[in-house]
């Protein structure tokens, strides 16, 4: 496995972050239901809070993707033992 492969996984995770944001959009639409009352207002407030939380969740997933990209960079950066790393890289499946 090399940095390119890890970067592909990072792209996959970034796609999941987009999915989370898309889910947040759909959740927001649940507030469109025709329902007027104080309980409905409380429900919509809860829904809005959940949408905000989902955007934070999306950000967390973005951070995970970024961390994977950093890991890909680290794999490709020659360290103090490039010869050993190269040998290990060749030995991995």
């Amino acid at each position, binding site marked *: *496995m090399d940095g390119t*492969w*890890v970067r592909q*996984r990072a792209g*996959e*995770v970034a796609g*999941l972050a987009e*999915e*989370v944001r898309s*889910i947040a959009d*759909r*959740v927001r*639409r*649940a*507030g*469109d*239901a*025709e*329902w*007027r*009352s*104080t*309980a*409905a207002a*409380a*429900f919509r407030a*809860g*829904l809005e809070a*959940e949408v905000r*939380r*989902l955007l*934070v*969740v999306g950000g*967390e*997933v973005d*951070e*995970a993707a*970024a*961390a*994977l990209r*950093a*890991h890909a*960079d*680290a*794999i490709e950066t020659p*360290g103090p033992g490039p010869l050993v*790393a190269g040998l*290990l*890289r060749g030995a*991995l*499946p």
Partner: protein
Amino acid sequence: MRGGVGGVAARTEDLERAARLLGDAGAGLVATAMRLLGVAADPSLLATATLAPVSLAAAEARLAGALAGSAGVLRSAARLELLSLRLRAAAFGYRTADEGAERLAHDVDTGTVVLGAGLAVGLAPLAVPAVPLGLLAAVPLRGPHAGPPIGMAAGLLAAHAGLLEHAVDAVPGTVPQAATAILAVTSGSSLLRDHGTVALSASAQRAMPPTGVADLLSGIAACRVDAGAQPGTIRVEAVRDADGRRAWVVEIPGTQDWSPAPGGNPFDLTADVASMAGRPSAADHAVAAALDLAGARRGEPVLLAGHSLGGMLAAGLAADPAFRARFRVTHVVTAGSPVAGYPIPADVQVLSLEHADDVVPALDGARNPDRAGWVTVRQPVSGSPIAADPLVTHGIEGYRATAALVDASADPSLAAWRAGLVPFLRRPGATAVDLVVTARRAQP
């Protein structure tokens, strides 16, 4: 309720569609979580630790946080499921209300109906089972009364969490079934897995025996982390009378850790799901091991008292033949716990405190058995008809106040129930030793 013109306030089709949307969104998040888990646990990724261990550890920590952290995908999925359930409950309440009003409209005029609804509202806290569900929430929604009273009806739904029992009972899949399904979905991962072993540490101190149910709730409150206790703490009280006979009180706290990944604290979401699905958990083992550690002998009476998850554990243990073969459970006290589905034998005396505006005890979708040895005290705590704060309605402080009312009540059922508590309570010559036990789930 009624479409189009004339004071329409809730369209049940809209609510049901929105509930489905939220349910689908929750399911979508679970699928996202599974794919994140797939990346995090990919053996090829883990193998890159030999090349860059530090950056891989950082990436894995980020992935774990995004998956199961406080701002993680799984928690959001669970919250969306709860929002979906609330909407389905609301839609069910409105629909049932509408059908009830339709039936009533055939026989009585509007004025009589409103009067009937008013009576039903007044009686509801005392006799919810006897009041037709339709009458509870329906009538103010109709015709000329469809303006401000709609808030009343929605408020009733929120204030009478008992309606949720009907809703949960009506929707496909009860919470126990959902718990089993959740365990099936997560079977390929370590989430919510409980291998059931615990390690205990304990300290003993002299104490005064409890004086009543409120003291039992105080004992449970003392097990909470915010009261200064270690995570995973339960209390075992040995009460000895003047003749040397012993009785045992076990006080069990509610959920202390909401992560789906089982950690060291056995009083966590994993125990909640296991208990709802009828499976043993490390928390169950903690209670049994604590009684063993304290030296409880077979034949000595045991009272199990718990709040929320603690009450579920108490009920589950009282219903467990293997546990009863080791310990003679004579009494169970639950506060804010959904325990209707636990097959507790008739010779165990049960007292269940349930706030009518606390949704947690309604989650099992059923009322507690109505029998001589099982007393359920049900009353509202918030004083607010709508949008009650769950921290208040479910919190142990509110239940302690309700327990104090039970201690002071002259109701014959409660008086008879309290009379059976004597071996566990303070009286002349009785002494007590408290064993404060901290349980840690042993990692495999």
